[in-house]
Each structure stands twice: as structure tokens, then as C-alpha cells.
């Protein structure tokens, strides 16, 4: 039985004082003798010491070890968060991406001193282009959402350069990740949402009628968040191109077609990849990620190609100088998205993954992810409590969205209750209440990393929860019981009088120095 650690661990501030975790004590003495005391102009001299911990190394290590025992990652068990692609993070990649020889490379070292690294980054760029069927990639963006923002900035620039005035709309299906409309808005576009039809595709008629001279582009993830391949994608691409719009591929769900189909062959102009999803870099409790952007190198206008609009550096091989070099964005680029080259640790992680699997292994990963999904669907077919809306007779790809709506209607037990019941048996829960078009959604993605047995146990547990809900609908409301804490008071967490984003606020409020957040 699953029982998570429960340490009642104090805050780091509450652990005592007067000790030192690391001693740099005498390092300044020699300099003091020469320069005297530090002299800082009084206008900017800090007079008080900050309220920071004073703990020994063992206290700090124990504190964070205990806290880590109250966390849950792929190393702990299945994390079937839909659209997050929580695959296993291989340990050989951890070893290599945290190598001291990488840690010590400064971002502004001359290209000539980092030929080994640049060669690897050059190869990774090419591999990602081959995998997606695109022409050129920049490894620059720090995450998927930043890749998206890069993509819509490219679209913006493309229309600007072509004097396409009035193109201010981006079309997005209603099943899209929230980042798509948010990225489009950040780049100054309006978003037009297209409904999903019963078969799970973007409603083609609605899509056609939304196209106009204002259409700047389309952002779409394929397979969709329903785990379904967009069947009319080739026609969609043609229609968008006829309006001189560009197609953006959200690569969050690439695992569903890995080694089987490529966005470049479907007609996409721009695509981002999530190396922390499809290419096994770890999610780190929410990041850092890496979101390379790849493009089809089409003509923008005379002498300007789409690659000139990339918002990040590209590595190339200079035949004359016989060395790898970095080409930084030029005058047609929207500019950089972050400082320096990219999240290189994550890039090396993905490089190691691709090396280890090769093309055959990548295909196998994609296929197994799809088999795992459809195996799970079959296991759930006889359940009355959960339905699978949209495209009822279609095979899913990397993920499936179950709806707990039947169970909810029958018993009042919600998707959230179900997810707490899953936690209690040692599974992480699926992504819940997303996509928004499915009621009581449980968006489930096992990836290729999950064992058949775990998928079976997961399905079994879902049915067990269904039975418990029917027998006593109040019981699921008490879950979870086996995690470090039970359900959390979110009203208190968000109330202006009690909201506590930092220990400092807590302290100042106790002294009467902070009122409600109004």
C-alpha cells in the first residue's frame, strides 16, 4: 500500500540559528589588509542584514531531503499527466548533462574554444529538423511557451515584411493548450477559437468560414489534446496558405506521431518541440525546459527567407574556416527570447536521448506510447462511470481524455475526487479539467515509459473508485488520506486577508504591518 512520508517539516526559517553551512570566513582577510574596510557610498549601502538562515550543512541537507520525500516524480511512480509527456528521464543523461566540463563553459566564450559543444548542438539542430520534417531549427527558446511566442513573433514579422496589413487574427481550435491563445495575445494577435466536431477534429466548416484576409496564421497541436490526429490537416494547411497565413505546429504532443508522421510533411511552416516532453529532459518540478523552434525555409520576400526571422542563434559549419560558428539573429529577426544560446543542459539531455534510441528507438517510443494509450482505453471500455467523448470509434495516439461526467451525474463524485483517489493508491493523477471542452476531464498520458502492469493497475483503481463512489459518494470527498497532507484550503490560500506568498508577508502581517491584499 502507498503511504507518502509525512514529516511536518518546519520552514527553513524555523530551524534554528547561529550555525554556518559553508565557511568562506577568511577569504577576504588578505584583501582587507590591502584595501581596508569595504567602502560603499551611503546612498546605496545596505545597513541591515537580511533575514536568512544560519544552519549547518547537515541541517540543510536533511531539511531538503525530507521535503523531497514529500514530492513525487517519475522516479517515484507513474505520472500520467496528459499533454505533459512525463517519460522516464534516463540517468546516463543526468550524468552527462551535469558534467563539470559543461558547467564551466561561459556563454560568451569564443566559438573557437567550444568546437566540441557546437558540433553536438549543430547535430541536434539537424536531427530535430529531420524528425519534424522542417528545414532549420534554433535551439534557443527556454520552454514550449517561449517557442510558441517565438513562432507567433515570426508570423508577425513575416506579415510585416510582406506589407500584409490587417492580418491580426490567429486561429486556434478550442481544444488547444492555453498557451496558444496566450502566446498569440502576447504577440498582439486576436485569437479566433474553432469548435471541435463530434469526431474530434477541428470543425472544418467553422474553420473555413473563420478564414479571411485578416488571418495571420493557425496554431494547432496535432495530435490534439484529445489524443486524436487532425484528419483534414493537409486541407487545412492549404486553406491557410491560400490566405497567405502561416501554420504553427505546437509540438507538445509530438510523441503521438514520433517516427510516423512529421509536421513538415503536413504543411506546417513553423514548429516548436518540447525537449522536456518528447526528448526525455526532466521537468524539474515545473522547469527548466527547452523549446527549439524549427521552420520551413520559405521565401518571405526578395532576398529574405524565413530563417532570417528566427529569434535565436543557429549553429552552422563554416567551410572556409573549417569550424562551427554561431549565427546570431540579424535585422529581420524579432530579437532574442532569452539571454545567450539556450538551455544547454536540456539540449545535451535530448542529444543523449536521441543518440541512445536512434531512429528505430524513437519510432518504438512513439509506437509504444500509442499502444499504451489504446490498451488503457480498451481496459476502460466496460466502465459506466467514465466515458470517452469525441471520436468514439477512433484510436487515440499519445493520450486519451476520460470524462468522469457519468460518474459525477450518478454520484456527485468529481474528476478531482477521482484524482485524489488515484493519489491514495500511489499514482500521480492525470491532468484534470482540461481540455475545457470535456466535462470532468481526466487527461491521461502514460508515454512509452509505463509498464503494462501499471496501466492495468491504474485502470483497476479507476474502476474501484467508481464502485466506492456508488456505495458511498461521501467517501471520495475525504481523499486523499495517504499523502503528506489531506485536501487543502484554497479559499484561505487565495483570500486577501490570508494570502501568504512569502514568509516575509507572514511575518509582517503578524506585526500588523501588512493589511489585506486589496
Amino acid at each position: 500500500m502507498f503511504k507518502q512520508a509525512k514529516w511536518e517539516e518546519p520552514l527553513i526559517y524555523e530551524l534554528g540559528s547561529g550555525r554556518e553551512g559553508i565557511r568562506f570566513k577568511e577569504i577576504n582577510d588578505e584583501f582587507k589588509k590591502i584595501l581596508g574596510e569595504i567602502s560603499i557610498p551611503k546612498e546605496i549601502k545596505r545597513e541591515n542584514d537580511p533575514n536568512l538562515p544560519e544552519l549547518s550543512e547537515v541541517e540543510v541537507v536533511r531539511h531538503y531531503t525530507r521535503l523531497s520525500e514529500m514530492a513525487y516524480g517519475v522516479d517515484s511512480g507513474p505520472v500520467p499527466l496528459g499533454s505533459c509527456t512525463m517519460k522516464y528521464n534516463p540517468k546516463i543523461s543526468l550524468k552527462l548533462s551535469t558534467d563539470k566540463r559543461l558547467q564551466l563553459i561561459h556563454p560568451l566564450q569564443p566559438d573557437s574554444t567550444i568546437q566540441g559543444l557546437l558540433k553536438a548542438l549543430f547535430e541536434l539542430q539537424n536531427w530535430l529538423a529531420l524528425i519534424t520534417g522542417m528545414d532549420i531549427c534554433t535551439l534557443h527558446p527556454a520552454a514550449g511557451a517561449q517557442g510558441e511566442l517565438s513562432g507567433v513573433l515570426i508570423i508577425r514579422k513575416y506579415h510585416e515584411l510582406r506589407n500584409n496589413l490587417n492580418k491580426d487574427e490567429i486561429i486556434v481550435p478550442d481544444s488547444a493548450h492555453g498557451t496558444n491563445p496566450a502566446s498569440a495575445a502576447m504577440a498582439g494577435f486576436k485569437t479566433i477559437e474553432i469548435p471541435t466536431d463530434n469526431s474530434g477534429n477541428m470543425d472544418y466548416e467553422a474553420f473555413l468560414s473563420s478564414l479571411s484576409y485578416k488571418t495571420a496564421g493557425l496554431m494547432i497541436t496535432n495530435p490534439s489534446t484529445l489524443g486524436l490526429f487532425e484528419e483534414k490537416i493537409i486541407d487545412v494547411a492549404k486553406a491557410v496558405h491560400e490566405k497567405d497565413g502561416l501554420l504553427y505546429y505546437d509540438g507538445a504532443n509530438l510523441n503521438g506521431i514520433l517516427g510516423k508522421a512529421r509536421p513538415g510533411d503536413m504543411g506546417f511552416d513553423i514548429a516548436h518541440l518540447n525537449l522536456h516532453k518528447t526528448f526525455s529532459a526532466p521537468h524539474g518540478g515545473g522547469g527548466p525546459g527547452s523549446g527549439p523552434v524549427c521552420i520551413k525555409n520559405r521565401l518571405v520576400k526578395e532576398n529574405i527567407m524565413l530563417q532570417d526571422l528566427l529569434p535565436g542563434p543557429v549553429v552552422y559549419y563554416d567551410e572556409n574556416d573549417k569550424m562551427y560558428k554561431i549565427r546570431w539573429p540579424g535585422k529581420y529577426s524579432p530579437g532574442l527570447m532569452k539571454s545567450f544560446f539556450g538551455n544547454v543542459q536540456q539540449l545535451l539531455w535530448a542529444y543523449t536521448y536521441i543518440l541512445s534510441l536512434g531512429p528505430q528507438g524513437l519510432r518504438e517510443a512513439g509506437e509504444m506510447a500509442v499502444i499504451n494509450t489504446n490498451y488503457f482505453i480498451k481496459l476502460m471500455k466496460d466502465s459506466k462511470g467514465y466515458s470517452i467523448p469525441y471520436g468514439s470509434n477512433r484510436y487515440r495516439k499519445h493520450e486519451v481524455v476520460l470524462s468522469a461526467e457519468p460518474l459525477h451525474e450518478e454520484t456527485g463524485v468529481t474528476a478531482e475526487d477521482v484524482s485524489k483517489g488515484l493519489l491514495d493508491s500511489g499514482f500521480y493523477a492525470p491532468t484534470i479539467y482540461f481540455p475545457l471542452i470535456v466535462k470532468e476531464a481526466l487527461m491521461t498520458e502514460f508515454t512509452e515509459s509505463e509498464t503494462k502492469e501499471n496501466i492495468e493497475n491504474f485502470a483497476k483503481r479507476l474502476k474501484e473508485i467508481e464502485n466506492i463512489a456508488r456505495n458511498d459518494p461521501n467517501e471520495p470527498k475525504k481523499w486523499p488520506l495517504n499523502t503528506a497532507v489531506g485536501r487543502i484550503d484554497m479559499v484561505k490560500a487565495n483570500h486577501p486577508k490570508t494570502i501568504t506568498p512569502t514568509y516575509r508577508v507572514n511575518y509582517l502581517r503578524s506585526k500588523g504591518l501588512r493589511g489585506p491584499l486589496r
Partner: protein
Amino acid sequence: MEHKWIPNSSNEIKKSMLDYIGVKDILELYNDIPKEILINEKIWDNLGIGKKRPLDEIEVEKVIDDILNNNLIFKESKLFIGGGAWPHYVPAAVQYLAERGELLTAYTPYQPEISQGLLQILFEYQSLMADILEMDVVNASMYDMASSLGEAFLMSYRINNKKKILIPETINPFHLSVAKSYTSPHEISLVTYKVDPETGYADIEDLKSKSSDDISAIYLEYPYQYTGVVDVNAKPIGEIAHSKKALFIMGVNPTSLMIYKTPGELDADISIGEGQPLGLGLNFGGPYLGIFATKWNAEFVKQMPGRLIGMTTTIDGSSRAFAMIMQTREQHIRRSKATSNITTNSGLSAMIAAFYVSLLGKKGLKDVAEATWYRSHYASKQLSYLGFKSPLFKGEFFGDFIIDVKTNFEDLRNVMIKEGLLFGIPLSKYVTWAKDSWGLLSFTEVHSKSDIDLLLDKLKKIKGE
């Protein structure tokens, strides 16, 4: 193809699963993909992905070893270079904690009950930063300081709807590029205010003359990362901003705030910073850590980008608990009306910063700040004895400073690289206001006096030749 990372990939298991699903050929599962775009196995295998075949762990390690050995690696003590990322010592305990699998392989803590440890660490990160910055609200991280800056400008625009932001002439050029990418779709204009050529401090008269009523914010980089100067005018600059009903945004180096006045004390409305110095390696540019903080003001907090972790209790009130708060600002709920598109952030980097700050603590972190001050001031003085113009700007500086070597700096740096030292940044490659003979040098606690003296000796030798 069976692979050790794919546990169901043996033919036997796979077949049993396909049988249960009721398909004979796996291709049936892809029957909705148009035939003309289904990629043939042979073609895929020969595209040139990886080494065209799987490599085993020994082979992989050898390939990576070659990659890492084929670079010129300088030890920390030989890296005299900053410009937005600095060599600092990363304690072994910090590196160890960063590799805890429960944290490293977790996702965003959507299910708080099973993620309390992760949430508490992120809350502690927010709290430790709040105490360093003396700002009340810190988010759970952005990608890096540059993207924090772009988001800060957008937040300022959302708050007061004004479209002009004043930025210093000596702003970090990478940050400037990113800020432009973020703000240009909204037609926000970034207007430069001058710095005094003697001191490197903001030219207050110039700033005043540009501070019209239509400015949304004034941004101060503190220290200026490409001159090292810490501006003594920080407070008056903030006052000018507030007199125009504009926001005062400060970009900081958290380490320096152990000895310099904080954005909180200087009344900044938004403070951003680079967290890389707090235990993160250089890693050729990332991942780093974008710090983002604001005041105790509901309007500001509502307009803040990124995730926030809050402390609360369980519903039954029996124990303290942590959860993500104010999620209605975020993209998964608010979609096109969200304050930002950010979701994946720099969670692990934030946790590493928490480990680092907790371990070094009040004394250790101040030691590092003072060490940085001492070493840079010692080096600058010694370099001036060697006949260089050093420091070029006479204002207060921390860690970094510019010297004028009177010959081409890049040439000198290339000679120094051959001597095994990474000697600064040739500034004119990155900023328009610098001469070819100017270089940006950087010193931190990793440089001992003998490391610096060795650098000086080499320079002396080169100059003599």
C-alpha cells in the same frame, strides 16, 4: 525494437497488448493519418537521425566524452568573465540536492497533497528572495533575467496603459534584445537615458528631461551588468518615476544585495534579477533563473506573470499546507487574457537557489558579496598600476568593471586565452557605446589573490614584449 527505457517493447508483451486492443498490425492505430504523409520505416531510419542506430550506454558515454573534451575548459579561477553570467562556487551539497529524483523528475505541482515538499521548497525560494530583495511577493521563477525584464515591461504597460519606458544607455544588450522582442508587438517604445561618461551613473538631468507624463516605467539596472557600476542615484531615479505616476523597475544581482540597498528599500515597484549566481553553473547560457518580485499591492500582484506558491492549511485546519495560488492569472485558465503565456518556468533552478541561499546563509552569502567587491576593487587598482585605464567609470562598482587597454581588447583576450585565461568580454562586439579597446572584466569569490596576481603577471609579460 526492444529498448531498456521502453518496458513494454519486447515482442511478447507488445503482441499481447495489440491482441487485446484487437489490431493485427500497429499501423491500424494510425489509420487516421493520411497515407501520403505516413513515413516509411526505411526512409525514417536512413534520414540521418542520431547515429542511424541505437547506441548502448558505453558508446553514448564515449561520444559525449569526446564532445566535452573537445572544448577549451577554463577552471573557475581562470574565468574573469561576467556580462550576465558569472563563475561562482557551487557547493557539493547544492549539486547533490539538485539531483534528488523526486524533485528533478516531478512536474508542476498540480496535485498539491502529494507535492507538499516541492511546494514548500518553492515557497522557501520565494521567501528567501523576498528577504534578499526586501520585496513582499516573489513568483516561483521565470526563464532568466532577460525574459523577466520583458515580462516586467509588459506588466507595467498593463498596469498604467502607457507606452513609453525609459531604459539606461548601458543596459545589458542581451536583455535589451529580449525586451524588444517582448514589447514590440504592443508598440511600446524603449527610450534610452544617458549615463555620465565619468562615473557611469545615470545622467539625472537627461533622465528628467525624458520623463514626460506618458512614461510607463523607468528601468534601472543595479549594478549595470556591462559596466559593473552600482548607481548611487537609485533613490532619486525611483522618485522621478513615481512623480510621473510611472513604475520604478529595478534589475538586480541578488548577491550584491547583501551589501547594497535593496529594491524594497529603494521603493521599486517591480524587481527582477538573474539567479544564476545562486548555485547554477554557467552551462553555456542556461538554464538560469529569472527572479521576479513585486510589492504588496493587489493590482500589481494580479498583473504579475508566472506561478505563485502560497502557504495555507488543510481544509480541516490540522496542518500547514502549500499550494499554487492566484491561478486565475494564468494561461491554462485565462487563455488569451492571461498575464503571460508562461507555464514551464525554471522550477529546479529556483529550488537550487533555495538550497544555495540556505546553505550559505546570512554569513556565507555576505562573504561572497564582500569577496566579489574586494577582488574586483583589488584587480582594478592593480590593473591601473600596470598602466591601463581602470576602472573606466569612476562610480561605485561591484564585481565587474571596464578597462581600457588602449589596444584592441579582443586581440589581447585571444593572447590571454592561449595563456589559459578567459580574460573578459570585448565590449564593442556587444554594445555600441564601447571602443574596441574596452573590455569588461569580472571577479568573484572563486578568484584568490594568487589567481589575480597570476593574471597581472601574464599581462605584465605581454605588455613588456
